[in-house]
C-alpha cells in the first residue's frame, strides 16, 4: 500500500503526533529565532515600528532582529500596499530567502488589496507568494500582530508552515514513488 497524501487537518495532526522528537526540537528552535525581513511599503510600516519598538516589543518572541537582507531571514513580513509593479520584487525577495521560510501579510492591503481595488494594486500579496498568516486591520493593532506572531509560532512548532508542509508533501510523494 502506498502512503496516502493527507488532506485534512485531523489526519495531519495524527501523523505529526508521531513526528520524531528531533523534529519537534528543531521546530522549537525555529519558532524562537525568527529573523524577519520587513518588506515595508506603506502606512502599515508605522504600526510595524510600534510593534518592533519597546512598548509592544516583538523581540520577546525571539524575532529580535529585522534583517535587511533576505538571505539572512526566514520570516517575510509584507507590510503595506503592494502594487503590481512591485510584484516581481516581492517574488524575488521571497525566492532569495533561506528555507524554511514563512510569510506574514500585515494589514488588509497586503492580505487582499484593502480598499485599493484598482488598476495598479495587487489584490493581496498571496497572488505572488504563499502566505502563512494574514493580519486584518488598517492598520492592525499591535496586539493583533502579536497574536499573529504567536499563531505563526504554533504553526512552526507543529510543522504547518507552508514551506514545512511543502517539504512534507514532497517527502510523502517521494516515499510513495519509491514504493512503486
Amino acid at each position, binding site marked *: 500500500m502506498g502512503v496516502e497524501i493527507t488532506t485534512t487537518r485531523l489526519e495531519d495532526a495524527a501523523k505529526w503526533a508521531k513526528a520524531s522528537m528531533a523534529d519537534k526540537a528543531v521546530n522549537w528552535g525555529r519558532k524562537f529565532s525568527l529573523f524577519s525581513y520587513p518588506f515595508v511599503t506603506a502606512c502599515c510600516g508605522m504600526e510595524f515600528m510600534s510593534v518592533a519598538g519597546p512598548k509592544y516589543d516583538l523581540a520577546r518572541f525571539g524575532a529580535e532582529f529585522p534583517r535587511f537582507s533576505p538571505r539572512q531571514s526566514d520570516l517575510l513580513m509584507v507590510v503595506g500596499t503592494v502594487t*503590481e*509593479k512591485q*510584484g*516581481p520584487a516581492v*517574488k524575488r525577495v521571497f525566492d532569495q530567502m533561506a528555507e524554511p521560510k514563512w510569510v506574514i501579510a500585515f494589514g488588509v492591503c497586503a492580505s487582499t488589496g484593502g480598499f485599493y*481595488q*484598482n*488598476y*495598479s*494594486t*495587487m*489584490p493581496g500579496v*498571496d*497572488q*505572488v*507568494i*504563499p502566505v502563512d498568516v494574514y493580519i486584518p486591520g488598517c492598520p492592525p493593532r499591535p496586539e493583533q500582530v502579536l497574536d499573529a506572531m504567536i499563531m505563526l509560532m504554533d504553526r512552526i512548532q507543529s510543522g504547518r508552515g507552508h514551506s514545512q508542509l511543502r517539504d512534507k508533501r514532497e517527502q510523502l510523494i517521494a516515499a510513495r514513488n519509491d514504493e512503486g
Partner: protein
Amino acid sequence: MAQKVLDALKSHHAAAIEHTESQHGDEIVWVKRDQLVPVATWLKTDPAMLFDAPVFCTCIDRLDWQPQGVPPSMRWTEDKPRFEVAYQLRSSKYRYRLRIKIAVPESDPRVPSLAALWPAFDWQERETFDMYGIRFDGHPDLRRIYMYDEFVGYPLRKDYPKEKRQPLVRRDDLPMNPIKVDRAHPGDK
C-alpha cells in the same frame, strides 16, 4: 488681480487665445495648441509677467461629462475635444496666478512640451502622458513614470476599466490572465 495678466495676454497675443475665463478667483486662458510655446515663453520672460514658478501640469478627460445643473451647451458631446491639458503657473514677483488650458482632441492627443521652459514640468508631463496618453512634442524623455512599460493603455482615461489589472507575475498555481490588447485609440503606439 490676475485679470491684468489676461488683459495683457489679450493685447499681446490676441491671435493665440481662444477665450479667457475666471472661476473662483482663478484666471484661465485657453490657448491655441500651436501657439502654446510662444505664449508661454512670453509669460516667462516678459518683465511685467515673470511667471517663474510652475505649479502643476495635468489633464482632464471630458468623456461623457454630463453633470446635472450644467447647461446642455457646456456638456460633453462627441464633436467636442475630449481632453483639456492644464498648466498652472505662478509669478513669484508679482504674485499672479494663471492657468493655461489647451483643448486636445482624442484623435490627435499632442501638445507642445513646456519642459524646456520650466524643467519642473518634465516629470509632470511624463505623468500626464502615463495616465492620459497625451504626447508632449519636444519632451526630452517621454516615458511612463508610474506604471511599468508592459502596461497597455492609460489608466486615468475614463474609458479604462478601473479594476483592470495587468499583472507582471503570479504564483505558479494562479492564472496570469493576460490582458487582451485594445489599441482602439488612434494615437496609441
